[in-house]
Every structure is written in structure tokens, then in C-alpha cells.
């Protein structure tokens, strides 16, 4: 399993600004290792966000998203105490979900 995401959700003017830092190599599949062999692609392909159990965002990512990806978005009408859950899935089928409470 990969390391947990760091999620911060702060209420701001009736909305919640969500910042996520994921832990992932985001290997492009274009890089070669020291022996000259291509390092296979390994990157997050799908990201979803839930607000109190309801999906509010879906994203698809390619290998050009930077290593240890950062994502910031704003959930309308989310208030302190609400739950924000973020899930990702990578091209090897690995998944991870983490949750944070809006502060």
C-alpha cells in the first residue's frame, strides 16, 4: 500500500477549499534506468472526491502530472464538520482512499 494522502479542507466563505497531496511516483513510462531499460509507466489515472458521501469531482490524469501530485479544488456549500474523501486509482489497479474533516 502507498502512503496516506495529506488532505486539508478549510471552510472559506460558505465553501471549502480542499488541498490534497498524494504520495505516488507518477512514472511516465518514458524514463530509462541506469541499465538503459525503460521504466514502466506507473501513475494515477483516476481521482474522485466525495463530500459527505456524495461524489462531487471526477478527474482523469495522465503521466504528466508531477510526482507526489498536488490537487486543489473548492467544494460549494461545504461547512465545518463535513467529510471530504479523496480516492485515487493507478494504472496497476492500486487504489487508496483518505478522508478529512472540513475545519
Amino acid at each position, binding site marked *: 500500500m502507498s502512503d496516506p494522502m495529506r488532505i486539508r479542507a478549510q471552510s472559506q466563505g460558505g465553501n471549502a477549499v480542499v488541498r490534497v497531496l498524494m504520495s505516488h511516483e507518477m512514472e511516465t513510462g518514458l*524514463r530509462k534506468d541506469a541499465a538503459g531499460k525503460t521504466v514502466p509507466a506507473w501513475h494515477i489515472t483516476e481521482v474522485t472526491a466525495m463530500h459527505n458521501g456524495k461524489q462531487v*469531482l471526477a*478527474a482523469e*490524469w495522465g*503521466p504528466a502530472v*508531477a*510526482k507526489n501530485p498536488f490537487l486543489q479544488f473548492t467544494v460549494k456549500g461545504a461547512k465545518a464538520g463535513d467529510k471530504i474523501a479523496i480516492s485515487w486509482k493507478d494504472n496497476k489497479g492500486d487504489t487508496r482512499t483518505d478522508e478529512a474533516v472540513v475545519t
Partner: protein
Amino acid sequence: LAAWNGHAFEAKSVADVMKAFGAGAPAASNDVTLTAPDIAENGAVVPMGVATTLPNVKHMLILVEKNPSTLVAKFDTSDAVEPNFLTRAKMGQSSDVYAVAITNDGKAFFAKKEVKVTLGGCGG
């Protein structure tokens, strides 16, 4: 989770990405905002954002024209989120960067900016 649109991520040009999403040729628009630096000292981590004030937007995209795959990220908007997303991308070389908003009726609008990279992000 939606199925990953591998086809769109294989596209090598802005026009091909638009085709993959069934959108027409994009039109420049002041209602789409791209946030990106003028110069990226490290192409491995370039902050980029896409935002729009247009109504009925379905997808928002970040594209780097000269990357091996043009499409960096696609965000599906909903009524519950602001059409404003920030992330960090890799850039292999200096390139035009596009922020694109695709509306429900398949029209595409963009903002673009040239970002100069002094150190590439593809490990080459």
C-alpha cells in the same frame, strides 16, 4: 470511477485531444483562466491551474502542447464544485500550455500561455 480515457491521453496534439472528447476546434476565450508561471526552473514540477466563468462546462483540461502526451489532466465539473482546479505538471521542454473548458454541447474554449522550462521534467 469512470473508465480511464487512454485514447485521449495518447493524443499528440491539441486538435487530437479535442477529437478524443468529441469537441470542436477550441476558441480563445477571456472566460477561461490559465494559471502557470512564465518560467519554470524545474520542468518536473510546474504549478498549473484552470478556471472558468462559463456556464454549463462539462470538462476542464490542462494541456502541454510539446509533451509526449499533450493531455495532462481532465477534471469533470459538477454543480458541487467551483470550476477552478490547481495541480502540478511535468513539462519536457518549453511549450505552450492550454487551459480548456468543454461545455455540455461540445464547444471548447481555451486560454494559453508559453511556459519556458530551463530544466526538463522527463528525466532525459
